């Protein structure tokens, strides 16, 4: 199983929590779901298990922290590649990277 924490760096995360802005949980949720959808869209498909579990893989740990994960043992090898010829697809890491700027832009807007 692979997972990706949709959270900011710890110190920034602590500060965001301390701000107690009511819009931030919605911002984190929105972008966690976007990452999940993008990862599922770009995941390699054989049986469809990886893609389907990623699409439903965004779960809240707390209002400011979501985890996105699949439910397969081989997802990590598709994501990062192997020594045996499986190329790294980076469907989850790439999705998170593409979502970073829109996420921080929404955080900036939420904090006014």
């Amino acid at each position: 199983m692979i997972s990706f924490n949709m959270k900011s760096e710890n110190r920034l995360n602590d500060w965001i929590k301390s701000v107690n802005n009511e819009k931030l949980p919605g911002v984190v949720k929105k972008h966690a779901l976007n990452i999940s959808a993008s990862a599922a869209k770009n995941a390699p498909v054989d049986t469809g298990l990886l893609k389907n579990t990623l699409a439903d893989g965004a779960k809240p740990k707390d209002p400011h922290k979501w985890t996105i994960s699949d439910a397969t043992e081989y997802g990590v090898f598709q994501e990062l590649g192997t020594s045996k010829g499986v190329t790294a697809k980076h469907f989850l890491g790439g999705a998170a990277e593409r979502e970073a700027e829109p996420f921080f832009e929404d955080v900036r807007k939420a904090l006014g």
Partner: protein
Amino acid sequence: MSIQSPLDAALYTALGGTHTNAGTAVFLQVAPDNYPLPYVIWSYVNEGDRNETPHRLKDVVVSIFAYASTPTAAKTIDAQIDGLLHHRTLTVTGWTNFMTRRENGYALEETDSAGKKTWGCGADYRLYLDQ
């Protein structure tokens, strides 16, 4: 415009040769079939354009993995790569690399059908380049 071709050359120059215990066994995406361990593989996680200034500015994340027959050997090569890239400057044709840093680190273990283990150790490196 992709930066990958000049960056491929820069990474090979930085990591290949005698710089790590993998020697010249440094490959993009995948190693040749049955290539002997150890070796290094790099791949692109993301190539972003930061459209914030009049300059062309690239925000690139590259995943670099060392594969070896023991965890210690894989970690040693990973540490050598860290020493070559983290907070160092790459020479990239047509671009100025003004920041390179190590981010997420990974460790993997693979077991083939014969029970033979291969150990992988690596990290993502973020590079900012402009022109």
